[in-house]
């Protein structure tokens, strides 16, 4: 197992470095200067600014410094458009917000999705099954940016039950709508995957054997069927995680949560490269790390995988 994890790390770390270098080079090739204004800046001021942000050094030197700062101390450098604030400050401010509702969205998507899918499979062709299939088919066409305005329309403007934006230090009523908006389509996918793999497992020989030896259905499902049926779900968790991280940008912007996605979009619009770069790398690192976790979990659950 240890060697398996080490080998996966040997792939993950170069991937991350490649992502950092690639993003950094992209930024280098962008036209224009982050300090360019319509009125123009005197050359002396420009030289000082460039010296302050280290832009007067060679490309290789700057890249080396950038990568080294990240690797050695998670230092993403200063922001170009917010003076006196570093990319780290921005991440420190926005990330806890995104992490909070992102975590709950993930938990809700997995728990509700697996439960719904498993019950639909166990009660195959029942009303519950049809309802579950209906929900999962419907949710396919309701990605987060469609869910969010619909939810606000219904629960904020018509019913007046929940606030349609803001964060207020993460009080529960401010978390509910973002979580529903972000998790719905992934919950549906997880339910669909669980249902079909559970159906397959329930028809397998070892389940019939377990039932034939007189085990109650409950025990058959919990002890024998659930674990193998979870394998496709586990391999879907990686893409689901990427989707949610990406979706959090929409949630942050639409619900004005003050999360990291809001900074990301604002920086994209104002060309604050260092912030975009820092957030891209942060989310890239999270994704790569999470995929690693999923692989390890998969290898751990699936006895057929040799490592």
């Amino acid at each position, binding site marked *: 197992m240890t060697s398996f994890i080490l080998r996966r790390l040997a792939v993950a770390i170069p991937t991350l470095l490649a*992502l950092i270098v690639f993003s950094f080079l992209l930024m280098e090739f962008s036209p224009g200067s982050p300090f360019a204004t319509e009125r123009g800046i005197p050359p002396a001021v420009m030289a000082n600014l460039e010296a302050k942000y280290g832009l007067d050094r060679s490309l290789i030197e700057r890249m080396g410094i950038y990568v080294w700062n990240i690797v050695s101390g998670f230092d993403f450098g200063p922001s170009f458009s917010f003076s006196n604030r570093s990319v780290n400050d921005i991440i420190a401010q926005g990330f806890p917000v995104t992490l909070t509702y992102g975590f709950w969205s993930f938990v809700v998507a997995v728990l509700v999705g697996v439960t719904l899918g498993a019950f639909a499979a166990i009660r195959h062709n029942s009303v519950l099954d049809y309802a579950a299939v209906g929900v999962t088919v419907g949710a396919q066409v309701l990605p987060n940016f469609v869910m969010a305005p619909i939810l606000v329309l219904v629960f904020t*403007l018509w019913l007046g039950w929940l606030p349609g934006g803001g964060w207020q230090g993460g009080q529960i009523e401010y978390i509910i709508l973002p979580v529903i908006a972000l998790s719905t389509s992934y919950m549906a996918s997880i339910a669909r995957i669980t249902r079909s793999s559970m159906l397959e497992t329930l028809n397998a020989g070892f389940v019939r054997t377990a039932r034939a030896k007189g085990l109650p259905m409950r025990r058959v499902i919990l002890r024998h069927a659930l674990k193998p049926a979870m394998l496709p779900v586990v391999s879907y968790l990686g893409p689901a995680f990427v989707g949610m991280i*990406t979706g959090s*940008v929409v949630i942050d912007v639409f619900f004005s949560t003050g999360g990291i996605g809001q900074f990301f979009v604002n920086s994209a619009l104002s060309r604050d490269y260092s912030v975009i770069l820092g957030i891209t790398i942060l989310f890239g690192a999270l994704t790569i790390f999470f995929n690693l976790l999923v692989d390890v979990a998969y290898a751990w659950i699936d006895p057929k995988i040799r490592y």
Partner: protein
Amino acid sequence: MSDVTTAEAHLDPDLLHGKGRSLWADARRRFLGNKAAVASLLILALVALFALFGQFLTPWSNAEIDWNLLGAIPQEGGPDLETRHYFGVDETGRDLYARVVQGTRISLAVGIVGALISVVVGTAYGAVAGYVGGKTDNAMMRFVDLMMSIPYMFVLILLLVIFSRSIIMLFVGIGLISWLDMARIARGQTLSIRNTEYVEAARAIGVSTPMIIRRHIVPNLIGVVIVYATLLVPQMIIFESFISFLGLGVQEPATSWGALINQGAANLRNGTPWMLGFPLAFFVVSLFALFFLGDGLRDALDPKDR
């Protein structure tokens, strides 16, 4: 579905008289028997006609401002046949009908172009990797894995910011990833085709590798490729809409479903519900139709996969 077709097959006069049916005739039968899929195809045809010719039905363009309505849009800007704003106007007094026509064009174009790129690049890539096998296969698929483990949306936004936000850049960006899934699927399929007798026979009589891939592998991939291409179209539309929803995609006065939904959502509290309703309806109905069409095609072309 399968019960219906087998029941019909027993009664089929062609079969009774011993006449064979081609794979495609079979697929067409199965597809036409699927009511949801046929209805979806009709809906999509209507949406496509709307995108192509909808502009001829209105005197307004997508960028023109109706000055008569400015200042009173929540009261008078709603759908109205008299002013010929069939879908109402947006917050700056532009005709929403013309804008939805324009947005539908861009969204459909993005979906179709993305799917086409994935068909061409993905199929070729997957077929080569699967057929050649060995180290080449390993290296090629590792690269696909690597690309897939990156949160691509962020890199694409980075690209859009750096190389100006144009529709062409958006197409390039979408083209860069749309083929990844297709490459995996095509490779998996190729692995089973390469061991068939006819490929072996072709190899035995000395047909070159590129020729085998072109003549024997790719034609046999088409069924699966069509199915996944159809399912890719809605994914690409969602992808583009996501970026446009954030205001980072298509630029004014051009628009897309995502951009229109965004504007509708931004004006939720201003009493202009039609601004959200019409684009949302187009988005949801078309995507539904695309998913059902994809399912129908899968049942028709790939009957093993159930």
